[in-house]
């Protein structure tokens, strides 16, 4: 029975795996093939994302397309590449052997990319070769005889322009004819395979040479633009300066561009609260809705614009090919503290959120390199810390400009980010000299040609991030807000109470219990209360402060901006101390869970929690005492 008839009779759709080296345009092809019909899940046991999507072929087959992590060879060097190998070989649990493999190669770099195809061909499974980015190859005067290549290899070969829907028609037709003649009887039989020896790889190289000699009609001229750009962007002096300027621009943009959408969200939240407040009867439910849920969730949703802008930059840098240059420029500095240049990419992602950052470390092959990167990822200021920073900076740092137009508030923010980075480098260096001594991974990294970022790739990436963030709000944050509201509302104050109601609540009790512990670093009981839910997720602390102060004041205080309230009730030393605390404190259960999953042990998650907690306390203590001594009391 063919896969086509299977699909028609309602069995599982035929499954095709996209395999290709990094930078072969595989993901762009995947996006064009499947459009919005994608889903992202995790492979069991590891956090490598399983990206799949559905497509309908011209004659009506429904096909599930799997986008496997990019790999130069089946000899996997990282957990990411191991997934590719295992799926292709049928070794991956809960994943049957794909009915066919589509090997995606960059037509302008066949000399390097065809080797993977030869490895795949050894497996004897149905295979299609895609020469992607054919438009670019042709523009450079490169001519390849598809027929000759197909004849030599004995498999279908198609050219694609992955960015255009019309550019994949040949591929769809080939998938159709392949499915019509392929049987899917070979279910779940793993393929025998041995790692190629160095001599085998050399033999593949010679075979590729031979193939190209018979199939390449004209080589075309090599690309010049990337060389010229790199002359500046990888210049030993100009390169790092440009990188620094780019990062600075990125963080300035996060604040200035996001201002308007944040105002809109803020206005809508306040409007909703006012509307509910005039239309609902005075009751506990009303309090829960307005003070608990809407104030809490609204206080977090407001950071969506900043998170999206940060990810927009990261996705643009990644898709254009600049990100590997950043890794190149940073490698020496990072290797000084025992890290790999590749760690730069996960660490940069950690500025948006440590969880995708920690997940991205799976491209680092060496276990020790990877572990160190995971352990310092939370020191990169993630967007969940932004709410706290923004609030405190707005309340305590004047909005003036220094040194000819640089905003002081932005500068302080930059300083906080810098503190996290320096802290991370120091921690990495110390870990590498003590607990995690040992060998390192070679750098060996392709610097792909620059290209314009693909709009679909970037938009789908952004959509993915927005979805993850909103899901977090809908689950963890929403439930924490309800719990927090409960803790700060019950029990009700006794008759004749002299303190605000929240002082007598459960939250107040917890806060007062923690107060002696936090008093040396300048935290009052309101902060202590906010830190409790803030342990689950950092941004919740802002919402919690809102709840604490809104509930502990009179009616008027509810509508008072939190900024103004804080500026009046805290000293500068306390604010600075809390900022220092937030640079280091491990206040994110989701991150700890991700660390456990990636390292496969609670031990490292516990280690991370402990060392960050100690750093946070020490940093806050020093900051508070120094600020007091300088008159910040």
């Amino acid at each position, binding site marked *: 029975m063919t896969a086509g008839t299977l699909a028609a009779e309602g069995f599982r759709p035929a499954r095709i795996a996209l395999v290709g080296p990094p930078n072969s345009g595989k993901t762009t092809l995947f996006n064009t093939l499947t459009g919005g019909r994608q889903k992202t899940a995790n492979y069991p046991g590891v956090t490598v994302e399983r990206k799949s999507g559905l497509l309908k072929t011209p004659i009506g087959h429904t096909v599930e397309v799997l986008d496997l992590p990019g790999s*130069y*060879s089946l*000899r996997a*060097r990282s957990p990411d590449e191991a997934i590719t190998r295992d799926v292709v070989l049928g070794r991956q649990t809960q994943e049957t052997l794909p009915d066919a493999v589509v090997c995606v190669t960059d037509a*302008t*770099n066949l*000399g*390097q990319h065809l*080797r993977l195809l030869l490895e795949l061909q050894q497996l004897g499974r149905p295979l299609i070769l895609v020469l992607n980015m054919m438009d670019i190859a042709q523009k450079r005067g490169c001519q390849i005889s598809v027929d000759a290549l197909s004849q030599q290899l004995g498999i279908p070969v198609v050219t694609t322009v992955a960015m255009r829907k019309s550019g994949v028609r040949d591929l769809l037709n080939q998938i159709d004819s392949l499915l019509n003649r392929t049987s899917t009887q070979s279910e779940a039989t793993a393929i025998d395979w041995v790692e*190629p*020896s*160095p001599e085998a*790889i*050399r033999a593949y*190289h010679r075979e590729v040479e031979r193939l190209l000699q018979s199939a390449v009609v004209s080589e075309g001229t*090599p690309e010049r633009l*990337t*060389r*010229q750009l*790199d*002359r500046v962007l*990888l*210049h*030993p*002096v100009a*390169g*790092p300066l440009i990188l620094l300027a780019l990062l600075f621009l990125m963080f300035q943009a996060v604040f200035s561009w996001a201002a308007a959408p944040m105002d809109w969200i803020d206005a809508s939240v306040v409007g909703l609260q006012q509307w509910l407040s005039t239309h609902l009867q005075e009751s506990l439910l009303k309090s829960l809705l307005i003070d608990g849920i809407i104030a809490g969730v609204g206080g977090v949703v407001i950071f969506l614009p900043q998170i999206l802008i940060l990810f927009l930059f990261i996705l643009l840098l990644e898709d254009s090919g600049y990100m*590997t240059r950043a*890794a*190149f*420029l940073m*490698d*020496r*500095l990072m*290797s*000084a503290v025992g890290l790999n*240049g590749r760690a730069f990419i996960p660490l940069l992602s950690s500025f948006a959120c440590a969880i995708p950052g920690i997940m991205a470390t799976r491209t680092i092959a060496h276990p020790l390199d990877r572990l160190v990167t995971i352990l310092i990822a939370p020191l990169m200021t993630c967007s969940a810390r932004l709410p706290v920073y923004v609030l405190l900076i707005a309340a305590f740092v004047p909005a003036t400009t220094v040194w000819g137009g640089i905003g002081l508030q932005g500068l302080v923010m930059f300083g906080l980010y810098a503190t996290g980075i320096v802290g991370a480098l120091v921690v990495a260096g110390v870990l590498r000299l003590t607990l995690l001594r040992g*060998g390192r991974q*070679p*750098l*060996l*990294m*392709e*610097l*792909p040609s620059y290209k314009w970022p693909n709009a679909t790739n970037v938009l789908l990436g952004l959509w993915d991030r927005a979805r993850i963030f909103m899901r977090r709000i809908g689950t963890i944050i929403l439930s924490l807000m309800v719990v927090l509201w409960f803790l700060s509302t019950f029990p009700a104050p006794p008759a004749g109470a002299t303190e605000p109601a929240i002082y007598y609540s459960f939250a107040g009790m917890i806060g007062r219990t923690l107060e002696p512990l936090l008093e040396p670093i300048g935290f009052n009981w309101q902060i202590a209360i906010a830190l409790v839910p803030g342990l689950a997720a950092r941004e919740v602390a802002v919402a919690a402060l809102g709840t604490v102060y809104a509930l502990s004041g009179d009616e008027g205080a509810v509508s008072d901006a939190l900024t103004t309230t804080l500026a009046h009730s805290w000293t500068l030393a306390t604010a600075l101390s809390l900022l220092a605390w937030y640079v280091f404190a491990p206040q994110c259960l989701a991150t700890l869970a991700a660390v456990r999953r990636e390292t496969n042990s609670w031990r490292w998650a516990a280690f991370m929690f402990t060392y960050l907690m100690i750093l946070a306390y020490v940093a806050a203590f020093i900051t508070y005492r120094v600020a007091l001594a300088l008159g910040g009391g």
Partner: protein
Amino acid sequence: MNKFGGQESPPSAMDHKASAGLAQPLSQLSRGSVGRILAVQGGEGDVERGLLEMGFVEGACIEVLHYGLLGRDPVAVRINQNMTVALRRSEAKAVLIGPLLDQSAATLLTTH
């Protein structure tokens, strides 16, 4: 035909030693040097296979394009005019570079 004819780099940037016929490791070449890979040696661990998989194979033409600022490390190398790979000097030691001759001469060299 010299594949590297007509490059923008000034002739003075060409490395004399690489063109003069003495074999030396890739880690010793200066920026702008061109040459052909004579041998990829074991090095540490799986460095050999890693290098081979990134295109560092006997007979391939290389050109040293860029350095990092500190310790002139890492190095960006163009392989066969169509792929640029970054690697550290410590790994580059494993790649032995000879003069840029035509293909047949290079093959002759590696077989001896």
